[in-house]
């Protein structure tokens, strides 16, 4: 998409110049590699190829830029993608080529495929090429056989419980949650009481104008319960975040991009860097989806997130590895 499009503001609830319809329309474009930018009260979209129109933006003071990757499944080697290391490297190249360099990365889990030490080692090695700090939360593939002990040893220093934690960057409060432990038969993802109590306490003293970014592996909204794509106690978590003016929830697990806006909360799932999965209900099961080899990179991707101080909604942009 390379044409500039103007959107009229109908209902500006957050007083940031973006209304729900315009935002959703913009987010739908994001899947094709568009960038939505608020300029002078008007929402404009730019194809990624025309980012120079934005003046080759380097992050200004008060601006925060980070990238999310997810579901690298290092160790997977079936026909859907026989070279997950290669596609992860392509994701790193994409990150290194972003016009606004991210300050750090979030990895929303399923780092490894079988929780093997060499799989984690390989991912660490490949991500080193970004030169950025990476914040991880585990996927269900990362906590096999040992209740997540290895994951916490590698990536959970200073984290609580099964590996949840929070940190701040440029006035934005980040919360990493774990919803892949102690899964019950027939159930969805779960946060558990200890983690929910920690979350309530963690945000208690924050100003409601503090932008929040919550990241966890399984979606924190119910995408498709038949396939386990949801978290059974996320409503309680979101209740603790109700008073905040800007909440961005970043998830993985479903290996496709999806977004939903609910009041001040924007939910977004990332593509995998390893293999795609079918859309809800479009296949008998949510397993790896084979696509023609030349199309594989177009259904894998990274997510670039930008926050400008003073604006409510974070700009969340997906781009494929093609």
């Amino acid at each position, binding site marked *: 998409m390379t044409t500039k499009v103007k959107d009229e503001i109908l209902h500006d609830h957050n007083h940031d110049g973006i209304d729900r319809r315009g935002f959703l329309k913009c987010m739908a474009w994001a899947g094709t590699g568009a960038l939505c930018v608020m300029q002078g009260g008007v929402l404009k979209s730019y194809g990624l190829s025309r980012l120079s129109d934005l003046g080759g933006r380097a992050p200004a003071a008060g601006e925060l830029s980070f990238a999310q990757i997810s579901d690298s499944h290092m160790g997977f080697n*079936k*026909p*859907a993608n026989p070279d997950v290391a290669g596609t992860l490297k392509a994701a790193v190249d994409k990150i290194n080529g972003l016009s606004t360099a991210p300050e750090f990365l979030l990895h929303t889990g399923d780092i490894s*495929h*079988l*929780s093997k030490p060499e799989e984690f080692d390989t991912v660490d090695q490949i991500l080193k090429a970004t030169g950025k700090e990476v914040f991880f939360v585990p996927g*269900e*593939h990362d906590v*096999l*056989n040992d209740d997540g002990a290895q994951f916490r040893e590698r990536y959970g220093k200073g984290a609580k419980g099964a590996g949840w934690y929070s940190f701040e960057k440029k006035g934005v409060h980040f919360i990493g949650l774990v919803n892949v432990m102690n*899964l*019950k*038969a*027939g*159930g*969805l993802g779960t946060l558990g009481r200890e983690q929910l109590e920690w979350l309530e306490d963690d945000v208690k003293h924050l100003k409601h104008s503090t932008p929040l970014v919550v990241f966890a592996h399984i979606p924190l909204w119910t995408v498709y319960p*038949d*396939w*386990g794509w949801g978290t059974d106690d996320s409503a309680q978590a979101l209740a603790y975040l109700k008073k905040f003016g800007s909440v961005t929830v970043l998830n993985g697990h479903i290996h496709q991009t999806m977004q939903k806006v609910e009041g001040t909360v924007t939910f977004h799932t990332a593509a995998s860097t390893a293999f795609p999965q079918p859309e809800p209900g479009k296949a*008998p*099961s*949510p*397993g*790896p989806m084979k696509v023609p080899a030349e199309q594989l990179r177009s259904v894998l991707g990274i997510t670039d997130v930008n926050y400008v101080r003073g604006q409510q909604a974070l700009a969340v942009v997906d781009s494929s590895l093609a």
Partner: protein
Amino acid sequence: MSRRVWIFVLAAPVVAAAALLISGGRSVTASAGQAPASSAEVKIDNFSFGPTTLTVAPGTTVTWTNRDDIPHTVVSDDKVFKSKVLDTDEKFSFTFTKPGTYGYFCSIHPKMTGKVVVQ
């Protein structure tokens, strides 16, 4: 060899073969004088256990084989049995000695559930 013994020796493999056909199991050993062990199979594929409900006699060894292209586990609801992670083509076996209903699920994909009924 006397005819009686000859028939006896012949009968054992025939009974074993019949048990094989009935239970669909593969690992059946029978030697003269021993009753054949019974076994049953559950195939894991497309994020499901097949058959979802399996009914067996006490003493049956059930073997789960993962035919899916993604790993799965077999975990009893009541902590009676628990497999390690099964990648494609890996197996897990458990011998059910006591009658009862044993619900289980995949701990990685908990929507996958199954049941072994021992009676």
